[in-house]
């Protein structure tokens, strides 16, 4: 069964601003799905429709098999959310926040254990108004985890967290996925997405321009891999030899080495050809197309 | 101890044994830091490590309990105004912006610095020219960040202090921010850049400093940090079939610290010069190499190694 399914989702604000232009999205149950796109591409609008914060102009959405508008309350009973642009209640303590979610969902859970899990066990008795941005983010995550939800919707969860905090969030996402939960995860920090997501969707100007695994996106981007070879001495002969290797599309000389664009499979051939010709390879490394480059290739020119 | 007079323009930031305590809490403990003029310096550390306190001291928002801070060759405390005239700042936290338009915000900074920049050119550069006439209170987080960057760029400052500049920016915005940092560095400005997003730091910084619990635990280039932390890279060699005894042969190579199989691949942890040997040994064993991938220790691993995180 699909955890999230949208059909031809359109959203127009105030008659003339088109936020979503026909989104067909399908997220499998148990999947960790990364939702990417530039600011203003429609990520938040999509999430807001899933939660019935806003209503689609056209099209429909189902979450956990239920209609996002008609069955919104049942959906939210089984969903944990870390919304974007939220605000905590400054005058309530951390424990009261978590207890409020427990009361709202009518489940049993230990607020202190949840605060411990997100790394702020000491903050239970303090009012959230005095929390740092990172602590507020952790508190909101603890609230999302209440009651072992079937679906977690995390909108920019690592905003304001230091690298250790971002790593903890990733660990929690992985734990939740292992438990069987579906995680729908939006982020601007592509390395975070790459580290946890099974598949990603890229949104651009209200349209879903790509949905695939990151590997799949790399292949579709089709640049092949880049090989960086450090040589004891770079000669024109070395460049000629490399250019002669089948599958090599480009060779450039830079800082005592060569940067070679190769298709998969011929990297060894490049190294062997150089060594066979008597060149001393002091070091080499491979570089894959970065997720940032893939992101740019799909979203460039969107503003 | 009177500080030795320093030639102007050589050292952008010079902290000597700076300690700062708030009440009984030590925020900074004997920090010595020198940032050369023209350098792009990344300033890293977990939340609460003292990064903001350090920046506050540079800008005289906080006074050191002990030690001395010099910025652009001037004393951070006694020559604050002169320091600020030549420094552009993108602060980490700022209050809500008022009803003034984006352009008025930039004009205000231009007047304050007595500069003659064109506000529209600046807003064009940071990518918010289309919103120049709208009240800044209605800007999104990313637009606010771009506006604040524009204000920091006014009057071509000699030193740019950017505290978490990519917060709230999408990947396109983060890339533009990096491009601007490069342009400013090319112009000769020093850029002091704090961030939690290590990939951004790696992409722009000449050197980084890592602060942990008020102490500067490392200052080096990222390559230098990699070497010093002794973290080796990893290479994965994908084969048609894995011959018997290959793992033992690879492990015997000088500079290889570990070897294991993963499906059709051999994963070897090794130092850079040993990589070629690994490929040769593999081929000699009679296997056909289908693919090779190498990876270096990630900056996150380095960060964790220095700060004792997760």
């Amino acid at each position: 069964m699909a955890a999230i399914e949208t059909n031809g989702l359109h959203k127009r604000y105030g008659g003339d601003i088109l936020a979503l232009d026909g989104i067909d999205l399908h997220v499998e149950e148990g999947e960790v799905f990364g939702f990417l796109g530039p600011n203003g591409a429609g990520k938040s609008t999509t999430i807001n429709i899933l939660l019935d914060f806003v209503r689609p102009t056209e099209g429909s959405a189902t979450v956990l098999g239920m209609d996002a508008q008609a069955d919104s309350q049942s959906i939210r009973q089984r969903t944990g959310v870390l919304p974007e642009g939220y605000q905590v209640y400054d005058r309530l303590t951390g424990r009261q926040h978590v207890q409020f979610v427990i009361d709202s969902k009518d489940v049993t859970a230990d607020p202190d254990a949840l605060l411990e899990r997100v790394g702020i066990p000491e903050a239970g008795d303090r009012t959230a108004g005095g929390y740092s941005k990172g602590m507020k983010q952790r508190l909101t995550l603890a609230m999302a985890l209440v009651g072992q939800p079937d679906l977690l919707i995390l909108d920019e969860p690592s905003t304001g967290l230091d690298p250790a905090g971002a790593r903890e969030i990733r660990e929690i996402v992985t734990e939740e996925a292992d438990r069987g939960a579906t995680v729908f995860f939006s982020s601007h920090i592509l390395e975070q997405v790459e580290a946890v997501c099974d598949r990603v969707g890229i949104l651009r100007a209200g349209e879903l321009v790509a949905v695939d695994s990151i590997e799949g996106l790399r292949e579709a981007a089709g640049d092949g891999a880049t090989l960086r070879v450090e040589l004891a001495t770079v000669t024109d002969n070395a460049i000629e030899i490399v250019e002669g290797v089948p599958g090599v599309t480009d060779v450039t000389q830079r800082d005592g080495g060569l940067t070679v664009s190769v298709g998969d499979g011929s990297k060894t051939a490049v190294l062997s050809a150089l060594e066979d010709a008597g060149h001393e390879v002091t070091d080499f490394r491979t570089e894959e197309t970065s997720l940032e480059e893939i992101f740019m290739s799909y979203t460039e020119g969107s503003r | 101890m009177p500080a030795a007079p320093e030639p102007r323009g050589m050292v952008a930031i010079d902290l000597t044994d700076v300690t700062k305590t708030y009440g009984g809490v030590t925020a900074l403990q004997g920090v010595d830091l020198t940032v050369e003029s023209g350098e792009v310096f990344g300033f890293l550390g977990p939340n609460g490590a003292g990064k903001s306190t350090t920046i506050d001291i540079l800008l005289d928002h906080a006074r050191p309990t002990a030690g001395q801070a010099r910025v652009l060759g001037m004393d951070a405390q006694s020559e604050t105004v002169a320091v600020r005239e030549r420094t552009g700042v993108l602060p980490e936290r700022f209050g809500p912006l008022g009803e003034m338009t984006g352009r008025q915000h930039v004009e205000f900074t231009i007047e304050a610095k007595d500069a003659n920049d064109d506000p529209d050119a600046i807003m064009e550069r940071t990518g918010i020219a289309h919103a120049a006439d709208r009240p800044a209170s209605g800007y999104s987080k990313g637009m606010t960040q771009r506006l604040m960057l524009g204000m920091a760029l006014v009057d071509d400052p000699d030193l740019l202090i950017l505290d978490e500049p990519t917060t709230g920016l999408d990947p396109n915005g983060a890339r533009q921010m990096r491009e601007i940092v490069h342009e400013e560095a090319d112009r000769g400005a020093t850029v002091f850049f704090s961030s939690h997003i290590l990939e951004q730091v790696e992409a722009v910084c000449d050197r980084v400093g890592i602060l942990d619990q008020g102490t500067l635990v490392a200052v080096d280039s990222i390559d230098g940090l990699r070497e010093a932390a002794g973290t080796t890279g990893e290479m994965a060699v994908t084969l048609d079939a894995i011959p018997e005894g290959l793992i033992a042969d690879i492990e015997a190579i000088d500079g290889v610290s570990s070897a294991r199989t993963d499906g059709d691949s051999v994963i070897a942890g090794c130092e850079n010069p040993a990589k070629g040997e690994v490929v040769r040994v593999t081929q000699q064993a009679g296997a056909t190499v289908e693919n090779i991938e190498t990876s270096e220790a990630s900056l996150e691993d380095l960060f964790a190694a220095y700060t004792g995180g997760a």
Partner: protein
Amino acid sequence: MSTLAVAKKDFQDALRSRALWGLSVLFILLSLFIAYAFAEFTTEMGIEEQTAEGLAYFLASQIGLFVSVTAIVIAYKAIAGERESGSIKILLSLPHTRRDVLLGKVLGRSATLAVPTLIGLAAGAALGSVLMGEFAVVALGALLAMSLLFVVTYISIVVGLSALTGSTSRASMLTIGYFLVFEFLWGAVSFGVVWLMNGFSLPSEMPNWVFLVNQVPPSAAFTTGLTALMPGDIPAATDPDFQAFYATPWLGLVILAFWLVVPLAIGYWRFSKADI
């Protein structure tokens, strides 16, 4: 359940508001002072007879202003403020319907305002009763019950207005505007209505239906309704010849019921359709 969870959170939140504590202490002190003045300076204040019912009316006369102003202070942001700051996203990420949220807000903030109001009235009544040596359970019970209804009604009006918008500045304009028109300036409005109905001139004698118009403000309806619940003779609100179906103090309760339901219903209608 859902409504109660929202109400409980809201109540906890409000309990930490310094403004509320300040106003509450002020109101309790005022009630004690009024009771003391009623009991000790009866003749100086021109009061004919010192009775427990009289004390109840005297205390009630002070509530109108306290409840209306405090209700606006503590509730004008109830929905608009949460929408503006984004905390509504936390509320509505949980399994609450928008109706639960609205009703929970009314309950939570009503409890918040009811506590100091009832404590203040009870303290004043107790002090007055001790000083006068006379204790009237029914009159004071009527006062407390009516005050509770008045508190819930006022909170409901303000929450309803707050639900019309996502901006706190607009919510404050709406609620303050309501207060100005329906409480502060209603006398003038009432005159204006008569002037209009009489062909742009004032009649020599006010028509009977002015009584109806005058009961429209919640605080007027509260005072009128209180007389319906009070034991003993109902003081004549109108001229004895005046006979109309609405010439009864029970009208106050009807009008309060209108205010309790209608603004909240309109607010709910708008809020349920809004994109937040």
